[in-house]
């Protein structure tokens, strides 16, 4: 069920204009515009609560923006959901596997949801599970996997249907350095060989520095800096991306607003928010 890429004038795979998301009175995303060209690795950095995940949710059709416009692979996530959804694969920040099923069952379900013919599904499942070194454990329940194994399985799943774009929301969280290197190696290869666009977030600045072609830094729902890692370091006269990040976003820890909102969320949760 693959959807043709829609021609975009400048080869842009993601276009975001004046995007706003309000939760009540609070603006989590406050007028964000950016674009990502096809085939690049785009790093989206920002302190906790900056609005990264919220933007990814709106790009991936699971959250409606308050205002602004979005194009993903040339399609509108609000009115052309199916086309947008078949364009991307995603690793969410939070777990999203069915832990009561085996690794293989999780991938099979994904394959059926994405309409992959069963022959191709089996073959790609094997390739990907071998790549993330889970092939020997494919028949085990996911609930018995370690955190790192679960993450690897989610990455394999996101790539199963050969998407044009992958969203990776903190994909390497909780992984050891070996696995992190391994996964980024693979993602870079995939990006180089198949021109897959990679949109990722991370709190590991060295990682972003190494893999990203381009970076946007977001804080309090607005983009504060944009460019290649080199340009961002040069612009702030910093030796490392970490120093540049701190120069741009300040020293304060972002807990105050998050905690009061968390309290409201817990209250509102039992009855739904709509």
């Amino acid at each position, binding site marked *: 069920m693959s959807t043709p890429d829609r021609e975009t004038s400048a080869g842009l795979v993601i276009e975001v204009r004046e995007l706003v998301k309000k939760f009540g009175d609070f603006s989590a995303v406050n007028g964000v515009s950016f674009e990502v060209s096809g085939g690049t690795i785009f790093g989206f950095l920002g302190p906790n609560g900056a609005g990264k995940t919220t933007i990814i949710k709106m790009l991936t059709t699971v959250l409606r923006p308050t205002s602004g416009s979005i194009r993903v692979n040339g399609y509108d996530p609000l009115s052309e959901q199916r086309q947008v959804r078949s364009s991307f694969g995603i690793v*969410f920040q939070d777990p999203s596997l069915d832990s009561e099923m085996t690794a293989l069952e999780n991938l099979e379900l994904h394959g*059926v949801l994405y309409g992959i013919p069963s022959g191709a599904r089996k073959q790609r499942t094997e390739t990907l599970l071998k790549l993330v070194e889970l092939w020997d454990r494919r028949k085990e329940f996911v609930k018995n996997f370690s955190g790192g194994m679960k993450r690897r399985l989610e990455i394999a799943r996101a790539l199963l249907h050969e998407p044009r774009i992958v969203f990776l929301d903190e994909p390497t969280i909780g992984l050891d350095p070996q696995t992190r290197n391994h996964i980024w190696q693979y993602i870079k290869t995939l990006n180089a060989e198949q021109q897959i666009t990679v949109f990722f977030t991370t709190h590991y600045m060295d990682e972003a520095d190494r893999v990203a072609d381009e970076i946007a830094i977001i804080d309090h729902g607005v983009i504060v800096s944009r460019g290649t890692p080199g340009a961002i370091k040069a612009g702030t006269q910093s030796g490392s991306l970490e120093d540049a990040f701190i120069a741009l976003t300040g020293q304060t820890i972002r807990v105050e607003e998050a905690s009061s909102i968390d309290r409201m969320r817990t209250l509102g949760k039992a009855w739904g928010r709509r």
Partner: protein
Amino acid sequence: MGPQMRVIYILCLRQIKRYMRARARIIGSLGQPLLFLLAMGFGFGPIFRKAGGGNYIQFLAPGIVIMGILFTAVFSGIEIIWDRQFGFLKETLVAPVSRLNIALGRTLGGAVVAFIQGLVVLVFCLIAGFRIEVAALLPVALLAMFISAVLFSAIGMALGSVLEDMQAFPLIMNFLVMPLFFLSGALFPMKGLPEPLMFAMRADPVTYGVDSLRGTLGRASLFGVGTDLIVLGAIATMLVSIGAYLFSRIEL
């Protein structure tokens, strides 16, 4: 199978697998109807007979079968809350398939699981002394059980789509499912009761599930099996639509 059917099928299969694997859950959800069957059946039997009601197990069993279906189906529907909490829901919400089909797969999965549970309860009722009076009507009884299962599963889906927290779960069980069960006439006959109570009972969809089984497994339908099935079918269709609509509006 077309791709849309495959989606419905695999989501349905997922629910059945999860149910079959959770042995504790099967036993747990059997416990309640069996407890009712034994405690009520043997405890109230003599009084019921003295009051001229006949054999109480014969009266009670259809209600207990529906009870088994009701609790399992609502529970399966509400599993959405679990899936939301443990994250799997996201995987289905970004998939390039219509949410309607996802909702249908889930509703059907919950219904199949509840139907199986109903069959098991029925077997236990037979062991406890219940007799099926007209064997030829058994297929109609099974149909009624299945439609009821779809209806209750759709209730669970609708609730699971709007509630976001597991903390709401006991609330639903105590303030919705239990009252629906008690108002269904599963435990006592709908005769000579105050009018407001009778009205509430007639408005309760579970009533028609119980009545349809009384008419097919026994011979004591109040509204007529045909009416029961039409009412059940109409309410099920309506609730499946509502459930699917609410599901399609879920945001993360």
